[in-house]
């Protein structure tokens, strides 16, 4: 097992030709990883991603080789993956207006070149989900791409395939989650190509680290929405007046850790309708 890289939240290893993605219990706010982990977060998000991969297998093949053939120390929070040639476009689906999508709408009335009706507010549900791809920058920030840009980069056929799959994954996930009290406002997907040329879903899917999860019962367009799982940490950190939002972040108090962990479990249980085995 060769360690390749440690990211903010996850680590990457190689085992022969396979890659292994290992999720940690780290949590970040303001682009700063906090020193206190949320116990079980890595396992919860990994298991949620695997749950979705299985349910979306008829939409698109995925890169998962095994979730059990991993070292025991990472059991439950690691995925052995296929090594794919990655498509240099971040594929984003938005069903609601938030974040940079909101900023782009306010500035231009469009997101990634997709025109939207007037009068939408922060958190508004869009008339239909839209595909808002970005560059996949190796350095610096990703930039919005229009669909024409994506066609230029990867060809018309692949661009259409990426848009179709991205919107279908989002619709499938958002519809299912909505019936279980969770709004999936948007999501980011990554794709690669297998040696036979087929498009394969990579990385993670429909977790709260790759999507905005809002509580359906607390959704009110026209104001910032409350996140379903990480909101306790966000609220608590906004009360820390002597932290300048640069590393190192402050330790998270135990009651915030416990409340946050309970929300991650709640999200898993709401969506999967399964009981989280570790309480």
């Amino acid at each position, binding site marked *: 097992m060769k360690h390749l890289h440690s990211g*903010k939240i996850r680590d990457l290893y190689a085992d022969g030709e396979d890659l292994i993605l290992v999720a940690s219990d780290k949590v970040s706010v303001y682009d700063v990883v906090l020193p206190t982990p949320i116990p079980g977060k890595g396992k919860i998000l990994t298991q949620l991603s695997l749950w979705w991969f299985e349910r979306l297998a008829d939409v698109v093949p995925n890169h998962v080789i095994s979730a059990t053939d991993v070292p025991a120390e990472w059991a439950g929070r690691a995925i052995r993956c296929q090594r794919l*040639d990655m498509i240099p476009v971040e594929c984003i689906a938005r069903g609601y207006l938030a974040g*940079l999508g909101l*900023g782009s709408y306010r500035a231009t009335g469009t997101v990634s070149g997709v025109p939207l009706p007037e009068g939408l507010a922060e958190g508004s549900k869009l008339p239909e989900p839209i595909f808002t791809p970005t*560059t996949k920058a190796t350095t610096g920030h990703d*930039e919005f791409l229009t669909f024409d*840009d994506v066609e*230029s*980069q990867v060809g018309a056929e692949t661009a259409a395939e990426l848009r179709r799959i991205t919107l279908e994954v989002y619709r499938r996930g958002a519809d299912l989650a909505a019936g279980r009290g969770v709004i999936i406002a948007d999501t980011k997907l990554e794709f690669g*190509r297998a040696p036979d040329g087929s498009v394969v879903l990579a990385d993670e899917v429909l977790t709260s680290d790759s999507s905005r999860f809002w509580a359906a019962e607390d959704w009110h367009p026209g104001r910032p929405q409350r996140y379903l799982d990480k909101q306790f940490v966000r609220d608590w950190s906004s009360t820390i007046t002597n932290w300048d939002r640069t590393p190192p972040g402050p330790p998270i108090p135990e009651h915030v850790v416990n409340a946050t962990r309970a929300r991650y479990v709640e999200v898993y249980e709401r969506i999967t309708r399964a009981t989280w085995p570790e309480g």
Partner: protein
Amino acid sequence: MQFYDPHTLISEVQELLRSYGLNPQRIDSQLVQTGACMMLRGLNVFPAIDPVGAYMSTLDKEPWPDADEPFSMTWPA
């Protein structure tokens, strides 16, 4: 299917131009990337990123909702 990393191609072209005494600068990174991808496709090579490099880039970023969120605009609530 043949693959090649457009970012690698861009670096190699810059290096080539420097060897001719030019001073190439990325004044429009999106245009440069699109150009590299189009050239590869025209040569029947699909533009793709090495998975290790791609994941390293992904793992170094914030989780998606935070990466997409300009804090000054929408947060704190």
